[in-house]
Structures are given as structure tokens and as C-alpha cells.
């Protein structure tokens, strides 16, 4: 069982190398290979659902990973995770199948596309099956990253890049808030295990901490599910290829917010903020997004806003949840997955066949695409909630809960019903518009100009989804039985509901009729008047505001840098260093009675070391006085070799060896570079020498810095720790590290982690250097003359002479 579960989660990851390997050669057919992952995962999860799961049951699987750090892989199987796992892998099958027809050989990089898709699917399965909040977070962020890659898949287009960046910024930033919330909750409860938290591990936490943790986690959920004020990223994510939109941005990833709220429902149920926060924001978003969907013209944008709207309902639904648990949430989610995934695929097919996505330029395609028209009719009817479709059943039970909430005594009791009612009426209007816009009316010339009929394979996936809408709409009992088996302890009301198509003339039915009538009125009224000219008013264009903010930050930083002259390092460094000398030196002066080290005596000077210091001082004076680069370099090297000797005096053979080798390597490196500089570079510097007064200021600042460093060294020597940690290493180097060279045992054993990171720094520096040099492109003349023109010294003197002769 454990092996099965891990196979289900790991299958997409295991298939990655194979997809990457064959993608270049198989091109569009790579999808058939990738199909193995969702099919396998779906079959395993279905098997688990049928054999292991029982209503209200829960199964926790643990795999110790790094026991010493307390890191375990914990996965949890219960109704909720199985339901989402089935949705993810089931939709995965359809989407990969659809994509293998949609992404034909006109597209490039199939290997990358399917690799991202599989990675995403694995991350999704990990998120929904995770049994530990930290593990959940890791997978959660991985879905965000793969979403970024998939949105930016067509990265030649700027809208793709902008959309990807926006999605990543919004979901990753809100994800950080969520991490803070998770840590807060974990610290308060003493555990990150979801099962323990659901059983009330956080019961004794203070209400303030719980509220803060809830708000932070809710921000993460709302950001992922594109709720106000983060709703703008989802429509911009529509730059992705349509299979991605159908999978990530309607069926699965954006549902993670819904999933998370459902997951933490038992944990935060007692929090007072729960209901007001979720209800106001999410039902508000539902209405706002419905209005925006009504005002959009791009088919995918309409669907995106309608997804945002429906997600608002799905999350808000948990906000209304009574203490006994909610019911019917899985029905609403399943219904949305079926019709929205279907509609996205339909839009993709229309786009694929006609090349047009603007609803005003489409029309009259029912003769060319009869099958697709039927599919769309069913899906749009389900979205509008017409009887006979799953959407109708979902809406009936939704209204029932709304009325029940109204009758309850909670504050804002009227709010859900009114907002959901109005939004549903608008939804009827734009559902009708989608169907009529594509298939009704007179045939559009623009749409038919490049028309080519889609194959049956491409239409199979939406056909199945539309069939599901219809089948479960007519026989809701089928779905009801399945969902009843996926009941989750702590979340769902244990009483079993039997869904049925006809309840008699109830107030829900009458309201439903009213909504449909209102929707029809809105549709016909808007069709007559301004729909063709409708656009989203500027104050509601949150995405434009966000883009403005993102581009303004670097501009502002650049302006600030220019204003403060950060480009002239010798100016601002002088200011910064001078300020530091004044502040630290001034403080020292006020404390001089305490900090004064006392005058040195003769015993404070060791003759040999003093001699070396004197030589170094001489070399230092040479550097300051000399003006030629090579002379200065020699002086710098002399200092380096004298320091080697100093290390010897300090009984440090390792240091001395390292220093002498590093010094030689540095000398050679710099010398080679200087030798290739053209002489003009050094000569032209003379014109830019600082004035004497400026150099005097620099000298004063440097002297101040040197004085402070001397005082700091003296103070440090005076205040040696009475029990230096070096003694520990000396005492333990042989018994613990089995080596007699203490310096080396510290490096590789006691403090090996430092050394490891240091090696990493070296590799990074090397890669940076490679990048700097290899990006430079030269002309043929530059090659002929050498990279830097005629050289000044040594190696290239002949070339330079020739150049001079040529000049004369």
C-alpha cells in the first residue's frame, strides 16, 4: 500500500528523464509517452479509493528521510486528498491526451512542455496528499514554479513573459505569507503533522496566534486561487498554451486555495475571523469577477474571470460552513472541473481551427463544427445551471445552503445569497454569450478565412467532460454515491445526502428560475446595446497597476542611484568611510578613559616581527608613491610574500604554504592582464589623477581607517576569551578526528560545513568569470589586433611597434 502510494506520487517524476530524452525526436508524439504518468497515478489512486478508503477514515503513511533532522515524508490519505488526487490525475489524462493533439508539430520543445507538465502533476499530487504542512508547502511552491514555466512556455511573446512573471510574483509572495502562517501554527501547536492538527493539536493555542496564523495561511490560499485583491494574475496567465489553461488555471492549481481552506477547516473552525473574512472577500470576488467576465472580449479572458468568480464561491462556501461540517463542496468542485475544463478545451479548439479568440469576430460556426457546438451547448448550460446538467444540481444545493445560512443568526447573513444570486445571473448571461458568440449568428468571414477542421481526437476530451456534465446531471445519484465514499473526518457532515434531480417546487427552484430569467434579460439587453464596445474600466485594471509597480521599482532605484551619484564609487565610498571614521572614532574618543590600551613598552615589540612590519611599511609607501601599474604590482606582491613570512613567525605552516601559492597565482594572473593592457590605457590615466587636495583628503580618511583598525586589533588582543574554543579542537583532534594537523581537521571535520560552502563560493566565482568573458563578441579586426588592441608591455611589444610605424 505504501509502495503503491509512493508510486502514484513519484510516477510523473520518474517519467521525466524519458520524456526529456525522446522529446526532440518524437515531437508531438511525446504526449503518448507522458500519458503513462496520469493514467498510472489515476489507476493507483482509484484502486486506493476503492480498497483502502472508508468514509471518514484516514490513513497516514510515514517514511523517515533524514531522521537526525526530524525530516520525514508524511503522506495522508483521506477523502479530501483522494478526491483532489483523482481530479488532478484524471484531468491529467484528458489534458495530456488533448495536448498531444493540440501541440502539433508546429510547436517546438515538446520535451520541455511535457516535462513541465509532469513536474507540475507530481507537485500537485504531492501537495494534496501531503501529511505535513511543511511538505505541503514545498510541493505548493513547486506547483507555482512549474506554473511559471508553463505560462512562459511561449516565451518569445512578451505577454507570456509578463503573465508568467506576474503569476510567480503574486503566488510566491502570498506563498511566503502562508509559510509564516504555517510556522506560526506549527510553533503554537508543537507539530506540523496535519493529522494531529486536525485532531485538535492547536486547541490550546492563544486565539490571537491562531487568528494571525489563519489570516496568513488564508492569504496564501487566496493568492493561489486568484481572489481579490490578487485576482488579476489569472487572466494574464492565459498567455499559456490552452491545455495548460485548462489544466492548471481552471481545474487543478487554482483549486489549491480551495483545497487548503478545506484542509485547515477543522483546525481553524473556532477562529472568529473565519466566516467574515472568507465570506466578504470571496463572495465579493465572485461578483466582481462576474462583472469583469461580462466586460471581457477575449474568450479565454471571459473563462478566466468566470473561473475566478467560481473559485470565490468555492472558497466562500467553506466560510459559511457550520460547526458540524459542510456538505456538497466536492459536488461543486467536480461540477466546476467538468464544465470549465471542457470550455477551455473548446476555446482551444476554436482558436486552433480559426486563429481567432476575440468573441466579436467569431460567429456562425455551428455548421463547420457541429460536434463542438453540441459539446459547448452542454458545458455552457452546465455553467449557467440549466436543468438536466450537473451545474443545475450544484446550484440547487448551493442555494439551499445559502437559504440555510440566511436563516441562521450570523452577521452578514443576507450577504452570500444576494451576491451569489446576482453573480449567477451574470453567469447565465456570459454562458449564453459564449455559445452564441461562437456558434450563433451569421457566419464570420474572419473566422472562416483560415479555417481548418479539428480532428476527432482533439474533441474527444471535451466530449467526455461534457458527457459527464450531462450524465451526472440526469443521474446525480451516481456521483453522489462516489462522493459519499470520499467523506472526510472533521470536514464533512457525516449524514449522507442523496442527490436527486427533482425536489418539487421549492424556494431554491423558484430562485433558480428567477436567476435564469434575469440572466436571459441581461443577455438580450447587453446584446442590443453596448456589448461590442464593452471594455474593463481603468480603475478595475489591477494588472496594469501591478505591472506599473513592477516596472517603477527599478526606475525609481536608478533615479535614486543617479541622484546620489552611486556610480562614482570614489565619491560615495569617501563619504561613507569618512562618516564611519567620524562616528566610530568619535565614540572611541568619548570612551577613551576605558578603551585606551596604554602606551607600548619595549616588551610589546618582537624584534623579528617588527622588522617584517617595517619592510611591509616600506612596500606600502612604494605603492602610494609609485605611479606605474607594474611597479605597484611588484610592491603588492612583495607585501604578499612578506606576509607569508609573517605567517611563519606565527607558527602557521599551512597558512604560509597557502599564502605563497595564492600570491604566486595572483601575481601571474594580474601580470598577464596588465601586460596586455595597451599603453594608452595607462598613459591616459595621467589626465585623470586626483588633485593634491583630494589625495590629502583620501590619505586622511585612510589614516583614520588604519588607526581605528589598529585600535580594534589592540582591544581584541586585550580582551581575549579566557577559554578559547581552539583548545577544544586541540584536545580533540586526535581522539575525535584522528588527525594530528589541527588546522586540517578543523577544515574538513569540525567545521566541514564552512569548507563545503566555501568550495561552492569558488565554483560560483568561476562560473561568473566564465560568463563575463564568453559573452564578449569581437569583430574580425579585434581578433587580428588581439583582444585589447596593441599591448603595452612585454608580450605584444612587436605589434605595438608595428602599429606606431603604421601611424607614422
Amino acid at each position: 500500500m505504501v509502495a503503491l502510494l509512493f508510486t502514484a506520487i513519484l510516477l510523473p517524476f520518474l517519467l521525466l528523464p524519458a520524456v526529456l530524452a525522446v522529446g526532440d525526436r518524437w515531437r508531438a508524439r511525446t504526449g503518448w509517452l507522458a500519458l503513462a504518468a496520469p493514467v498510472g497515478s489515476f489507476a493507483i489512486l482509484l484502486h486506493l479509493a476503492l480498497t483502502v478508503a472508508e468514509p471518514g477514515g484516514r490513513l497516514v503513511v510515514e517514511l523517515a528521510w533524514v531522521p537526525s533532522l526530524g525530516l520525514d515524508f508524511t503522506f495522508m490519505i483521506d477523502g479530501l486528498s483522494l478526491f483532489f488526487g483523482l481530479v488532478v490525475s484524471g484531468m491529467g489524462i484528458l489534458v495530456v491526451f488533448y495536448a498531444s493533439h493540440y501541440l502539433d508539430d508546429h510547436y517546438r520543445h515538446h520535451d520541455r512542455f511535457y516535462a513541465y507538465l509532469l513536474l507540475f502533476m507530481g507537485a500537485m499530487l504531492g501537495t494534496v496528499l501531503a501529511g505535513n504542512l511543511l511538505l505541503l508547502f514545498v510541493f505548493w511552491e513547486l506547483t507555482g514554479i512549474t506554473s511559471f514555466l508553463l505560462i512562459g512556455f511561449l516565451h518569445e511573446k512578451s505577454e507570456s513573459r509578463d503573465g508568467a512573471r506576474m503569476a510567480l510574483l503574486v503566488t510566491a509572495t502570498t506563498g511566503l505569507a502562508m509559510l509564516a502562517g504555517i510556522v506560526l501554527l506549527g510553533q503554537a501547536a508543537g507539530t506540523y503533522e496535519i493529522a494531529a492538527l486536525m485532531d485538535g493539536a492547536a486547541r490550546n493555542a492563544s486565539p490571537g496566534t491562531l487568528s494571525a496564523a489563519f489570516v496568513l495561511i488564508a492569504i496564501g490560499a487566496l493568492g493561489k486561487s486568484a481572489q481579490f485583491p490578487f485576482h488579476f494574475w489569472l487572466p494574464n496567465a492565459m498567455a499559456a498554451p490552452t491545455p495548460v489553461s485548462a489544466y492548471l488555471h481552471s481545474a487543478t492549481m487554482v483549486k489549491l486555495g480551495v483545497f487548503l481552506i478545506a484542509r485547515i477547516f477543522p483546525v481553524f473552525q473556532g477562529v472568529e475571523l473565519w466566516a467574515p473574512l472568507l465570506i466578504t472577500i470571496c463572495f465579493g470576488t465572485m461578483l466582481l469577477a462576474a462583472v469583469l467576465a461580462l466586460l471581457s472580449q477575449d474568450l479565454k479572458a471571459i473563462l478566466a474571470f468566470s473561473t475566478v468568480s467560481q473559485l470565490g464561491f468555492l472558497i466562500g462556501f467553506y466560510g459559511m460552513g457550520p460547526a458540524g461540517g459542510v456538505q456538497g463542496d466536492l459536488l461543486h468542485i467536480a461540477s466546476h472541473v467538468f464544465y470549465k475544463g471542457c470550455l477551455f478545451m473548446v476555446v482551444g479548439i476554436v482558436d486552433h481551427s480559426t486563429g481567432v479568440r476575440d468573441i466579436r469576430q467569431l460567429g456562425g460556426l455551428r455548421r463547420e463544427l457541429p460536434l463542438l457546438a453540441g459539446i459547448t451547448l452542454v458545458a455552457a448550460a452546465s455553467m449557467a445551471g440549466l436543468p438536466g446538467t450537473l451545474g443545475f444540481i450544484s446550484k440547487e444545493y448551493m442555494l439551499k445552503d445559502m437559504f440555510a445560512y440566511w436563516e441562521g443568526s450570523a452577521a452578514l447573513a443576507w450577504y452570500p445569497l444576494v451576491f451569489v444570486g446576482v453573480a449567477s445571473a451574470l453567469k447565465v448571461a456570459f454562458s449564453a454569450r459564449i455559445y452564441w458568440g461562437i456558434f450563433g449568428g451569421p457566419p464570420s468571414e474572419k473566422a472562416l478565412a483560415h479555417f481548418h477542421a479539428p480532428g476527432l481526437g482533439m474533441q474527444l476530451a471535451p466530449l467526455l467532460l461534457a458527457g459527464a456534465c450531462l450524465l451526472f446531471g440526469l443521474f446525480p445519484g451516481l456521483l453522489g454515491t462516489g462522493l459519499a465514499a470520499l467523506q472526510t473526518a472533521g470536514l464533512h457532515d457525516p449524514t449522507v445526502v442523496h442527490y436527486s434531480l427533482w425536489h418539487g417546487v421549492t424556494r431554491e427552484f423558484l430562485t433558480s428560475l428567477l436567476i435564469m430569467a434575469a440572466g436571459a434579460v441581461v443577455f438580450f439587453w447587453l446584446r442590443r446595446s453596448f456589448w461590442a464596445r464593452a471594455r474593463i474600466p481603468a480603475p478595475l485594471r489591477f494588472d496594469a497597476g501591478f505591472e506599473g509597480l513592477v516596472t517603477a521599482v527599478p526606475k525609481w532605484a536608478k533615479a535614486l542611484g543617479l541622484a546620489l551619484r552611486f556610480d562614482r564609487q570614489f565619491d560615495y565610498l569617501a563619504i561613507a568611510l569618512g562618516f564611519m571614521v567620524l562616528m566610530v572614532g568619535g565614540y572611541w574618543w568619548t570612551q577613551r578613559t576605558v578603551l585606551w590600551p596604554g602606551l607600548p613598552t619595549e616588551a610589546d615589540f618582537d624584534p623579528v616581527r617588527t622588522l617584517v612590519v617595517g619592510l611591509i611599511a616600506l612596500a606600502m609607501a612604494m605603492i602610494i608613491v609609485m605611479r606605474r601599474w607594474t611597479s605597484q604590482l611588484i610592491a603588492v606582491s612583495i607585501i604578499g610574500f612578506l606576509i607569508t613570512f609573517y605567517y611563519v613567525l606565527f607558527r602557521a605552516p599551512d597558512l604560509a604554504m597557502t599564502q605563497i601559492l595564492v600570491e604566486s597565482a595572483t601575481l601571474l594572473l594580474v601580470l598577464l592582464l596588465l601586460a596586455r593592457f595597451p599603453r594608452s590605457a595607462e598613459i591616459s590615466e595621467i589626465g585623470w589623477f586626483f588633485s593634491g587636495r583630494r589625495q590629502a583628503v583620501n590619505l586622511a580618511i585612510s589614516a583614520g581607517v588604519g588607526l581605528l583598525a589598529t585600535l580594534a586589533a589592540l582591544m581584541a588582543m586585550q580582551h581575549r576569551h579566557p577559554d578559547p574554543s581552539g583548545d577544544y579542537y586541540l584536545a580533540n583532534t586526535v581522539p575525535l578526528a584522528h588527525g594530528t594537523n589541527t588546522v586540517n581537521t578543523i577544515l574538513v571535520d569540525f567545521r566541514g560545513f564552512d569548507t563545503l560552502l566555501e568550495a561552492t563560493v569558488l565554483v560560483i566565482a568561476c562560473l561568473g568569470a566564465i560568463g563575463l568573458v564568453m559573452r564578449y563578441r569581437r569583430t574580425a579586426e579585434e581578433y587580428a589586433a588581439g583582444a585589447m588592441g596593441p599591448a603595452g608591455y612585454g608580450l605584444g611589444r612587436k605589434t605595438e611597434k608595428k602599429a606606431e610605424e603604421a601611424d607614422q
Partner: protein
Amino acid sequence: MKTGDSYIFRSVASFLFFVINVFAVYLLLRGHNLPGGGFIGGLGSALSLIMLSMAYGVREAQKVLRVDPVRLATVGLLLAVVTGMLPLFLGEPFLRHFHWKFDGLPLLGKLEVGTPLLFDIGIFLVVVGVTAKMIFVLFRSISGLTALNPSEWRRYSADLEEPVEREHSRSSSELETEDGP
């Protein structure tokens, strides 16, 4: 880097190259008990490569090394990381080292080895690789070659990018003769 024209330097360099490298490995191996270790050995070995490229030209030095130094550095880093991670699977903390004592080995007699040596070898490889690559790239670029071998272009740039630095001046036949590592 132009090939130096001193015959004496060349012959001494090729001889010294082996001496230095033997000594560098000696320093690496004895590092746990006497002054030496991965850093010092690695720097010494890298310096021998610099010397070789000064004597024979950078392309010859690259041929002697055969592999891309960055690969050496990566292998070294991986070796160090893996050495550090191994104890994790045995329930021990990160970077815990193990030692084994052997007695009565033929020729060597008493020998004590442990995982610190693996870690130190990793550091050695990182230092050699990083230093050698930086020097090679700079030498090549300064002496009018492309910074990277033609065979390395693809490895250091993405598919869609124009490859880096291209040959303009030299003919394609000359390009073929430059068979880098």
C-alpha cells in the same frame, strides 16, 4: 597566450609539471596529519597548469588536462557533498566522518584512512578546477582565441541563445584542428 620561445623553459616546465603534481598529491594525502591538505595541493596543481600554459600555450595545457576543468570542480563539489550526506542515511549528523584502521598491510604497514580524505579530495578538485578554468578562459581570451572551445559552446549557452563568442577571423579548417577537451 602565445607560446613562449624559450627552449629551456619548455623542457624544464614539462619535467617540473610532473614533479609539482606528485608533490601536490603528496601534500593532499598527508594533509590530515602534517601541513598540507586539499587547498594547498589544489593550488599547487593549478599553478603547475599555469606554468604549462605559459610554456606551451594554453591549448596544449588544455589538452594535457583533457576534461573541462569545470567538470573537475563539479565532481569535486559533488564528492564533498556526497561524503557529507552519507552519514545522514545512517542516522548520523551531516558531515560526520568515519575512520578505519588497518594493520599489517603489505608494503604500507599501519594505515589509517577515513572519509575526511574523500572530502579533502573533493576540495582539491574544486580548487584545481576553478583556478584552472579561470586561468584558461582569461588566457584564451587575452591571446585572441575564443574564451571557450568550440566544443564547449553548447554546454555553456541555452539552445535559443546565439552561442557566445564566435570565430570571425579564422577559417573553418583551422577551427577543426582545434580539438579541445
